[in-house]
């Protein structure tokens, strides 16, 4: 009993170590992606959306989240991956991210939620630059958790739909 308590304490201490953050990970096309758990508001199942005319292809539409209109983004399409049929495991991760002084709430469609890891951000490695791959723009870094590799996402860039601004970011960054 005591030892159990001690180990829990130890874990708590571990999670509080400087630079440690908790990441929610999810699966998409056999890859594991992680996002800062503090950005995650809730996880929902897939539901019918209302289409938004002339929106980018990765925007499925909008849902009513307890009175707030929340756009839903298909992360696969955003990353240029092939679209899949939505099934019972399809989840919508609702995230709140501050984009240019406004907190935006959006839903991200992913294949399945995977796990929660405590990761020290400093151990994350930069993404190798691939020619012609735009996706590295959305990636904050790569980390190893045990045997697995997790791609940490830059939600701000993923949710910032203002293309012009993104271009500026690329030029600036």
């Amino acid at each position: 009993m005591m030892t159990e308590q001690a180990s829990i304490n130890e874990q708590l201490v571990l999670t509080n170590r400087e630079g440690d953050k908790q990441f929610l990970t999810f699966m998409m096309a056999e890859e594991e992606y992680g996002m800062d758990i503090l950005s995650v508001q809730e996880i929902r199942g897939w539901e019918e959306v209302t289409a938004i005319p002339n929106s980018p292809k990765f925007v499925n539409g909008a849902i009513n989240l307890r009175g707030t209109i929340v756009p839903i983004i298909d992360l696969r399409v955003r990353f240029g991956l092939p679209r899949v049929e939505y099934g019972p495991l399809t989840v919508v991760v609702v995230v709140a991210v501050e984009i240019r002084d406004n907190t935006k709430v959006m839903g991200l469609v992913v294949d399945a939620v995977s796990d929660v890891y405590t990761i020290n951000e400093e151990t994350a490695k930069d993404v190798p630059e691939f020619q012609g791959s735009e996706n590295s723009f959305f990636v904050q870094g790569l980390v190893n958790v045990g045997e697995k590799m997790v791609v940490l996402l830059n939600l701000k860039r993923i949710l910032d739909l203002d293309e012009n601004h993104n271009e500026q970011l690329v030029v600036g960054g």
Partner: protein
Amino acid sequence: MSIDLSQFFDVFFEESFEGLDVMEAELLNLQPGTEDSETINTIFRAAHSIKGGSGTFGFTSVTNFTHVLETLLDQIRDGRRQLTAEHVNLLLQSVDCLRGLLSALQAEEEPDLTESSELKAQFDRILGNEEQTLQSEPQSSTPEAETNTYQIDFKPHSHLFKTGNEPLYMLSELAELGDLETHAFCDGIPSLDKFNPEDCYLNWRLYLTTTQGQSAIQEIFEWVEDDADIDITLCGGLFESEVPEPQAEQSEAQVQNAEPKPSEQASKKANTAANKVPSSKKSSESTSIRVGIDKVDSLINMVGELVITQAMLTQLGEQEPTEQTLTALQEGLAQLAHNTRDLQENVMRIRMLPISFVFSRFPRLVRDTSQKLNKQVELKLLGEQTELDKTVMEKISDPMVHLVRNSLDHGLETPEERIKAGKDPVGQVTLNAFHQGGNIVIEIMDDGKGLNTEKIKSKAIANGLIQATDDLSPEEINELIFRPGFSTVDEVSDISGRGVGMDVVRRNIQSLNGSVEVNSAPGVGSTFTIRLPLTLAILDGQLVNVASHTYIIPLISIVESLQINIDKVSTVGNGLEVLRLRDEYIPILRLYKLFNHDGAIEALDKALLVVVESDNHKVGLLVDDLLGQQQVVIKSLEANYQRVNGISGATILGDGRVSLILDITGLIKLSGLKRPGSQDLLMEKQEEEVTT
């Protein structure tokens, strides 16, 4: 235990700012020579309340400053002094200064006292002059300029603290009048077990040596007159110590020293009003909204009706189900629906405030600006009761200030120029607000010289905005002033042209999902028209079906809905279909095409046409079907997403689904339809296509 006065700060600030607004508005009404005593009284009362409140809360910087203001007003009110234009200007400056002081205090910052002390010196100068004229008149019974020593017996009643008063502040205020010697009598303090920390047990005997008159002392105690025994007597020696005098004489002394009647009444009024405030509002929130009592009354009425309906339904539910009760039940439900809708509408109205809240700042602005520019301006306000959401209101005032300043600076001519042009030397600026098609429209009109198209054009060519060879209509040229980095001012003046251009105005308005446009005629004047959506408003909507998507068309912009007679449709130009409806040609917008939806009815004679109007421009929207009409609550799509062309917002339908609300003006833009005499829309559409 002392009462935490800070909990009343918000109320105090709110009341004070309101008081300042009142003062400003009334001051602007004042015409020297023809002033009306009620106006002066109103100003005096407002100043007095602020002084009293700030004294209670220990904001001495405000108290001291308001005091001189009040003295001047008091003299004008009593007819001891003639109101001059200088006074009005000084008082207006003081209102600004007080606003600054109070804002600093509200933000818990150290207020900057330089301005107030400068103004105070000016007041003192005026009042100093007065002192002499006053003495020549046999007005006051007590000599004012001599140094006297007063003995003041101040015996607060035990409940003094509960009225929100603090003797310490009064004593320190007294000390500012001259040399103060205080003797506190502690004999009233009971033994500890009987001690109630919320009672006042102390009383004081004070000796004040001052050049000020007795009335100045009385004024300090004005707020506690009813809550304390106060006895002020003139005495010779400083250390003369006597037993406090009996009650009867005290009241006599008070009567003797009473101020002239009207001011007494006024201060009493202010006194009770100020005393009421802390007790009636126990808690206050960081943001509050003032709601007209009529709105609350109507809500209460509606809830009453709702309760009656509910009782009726309950009663019906208990009866045997027969044909008759069923009919009655249906009627009852219809009534319930009616009640609910009314209630919803009225609750939403609470957030709506009349636009006079914004308009009210313009008389002052116009007065000050026209003085600086040496122009004569008459400001007209129309549609002040038009209601607008509070959040929109807060954001629209800055762009409006800019536009009004522009009208005064660039639009209106000097009186000489106007006379030369055969106009009235007094220029007109009109602000007009009204509702139109689910939008609020605010017009800023002037009868000045209008925009100088030649100048704008040459400037635009110089800035590379357009080519010299471009053939632009006057409207298109006028539109150029909204482009970034555009200014026609040759010299940067104090009023405008400080680098904040019309592009910022347009951007601010667009950030509210609104639009601004200009109409101008040389020599006749310019009109700026701002269109804003009522972001948080209920809208009567027509639900329509387009390729199994449900959209909402604001009912107010719908002219009619009809089935298309294919014989009357002709195609013009680049594939634009036009329906001849009576003696008009209505362009047909195929919504499914604009929105890239598949599966819609494409045959014109199978679909329905909803004719809508925007900016006196009619178009027909092609839809599959009309569904129902419904009141919808507008929700922002932009909050979490972004602006969508042709969509003004979203709403949630009865079944929880999201439905988008069409923005008619935006749709016309999106379709690339050319408005008569404007090429700009097409150009903008092409620009958008390039960016997306």
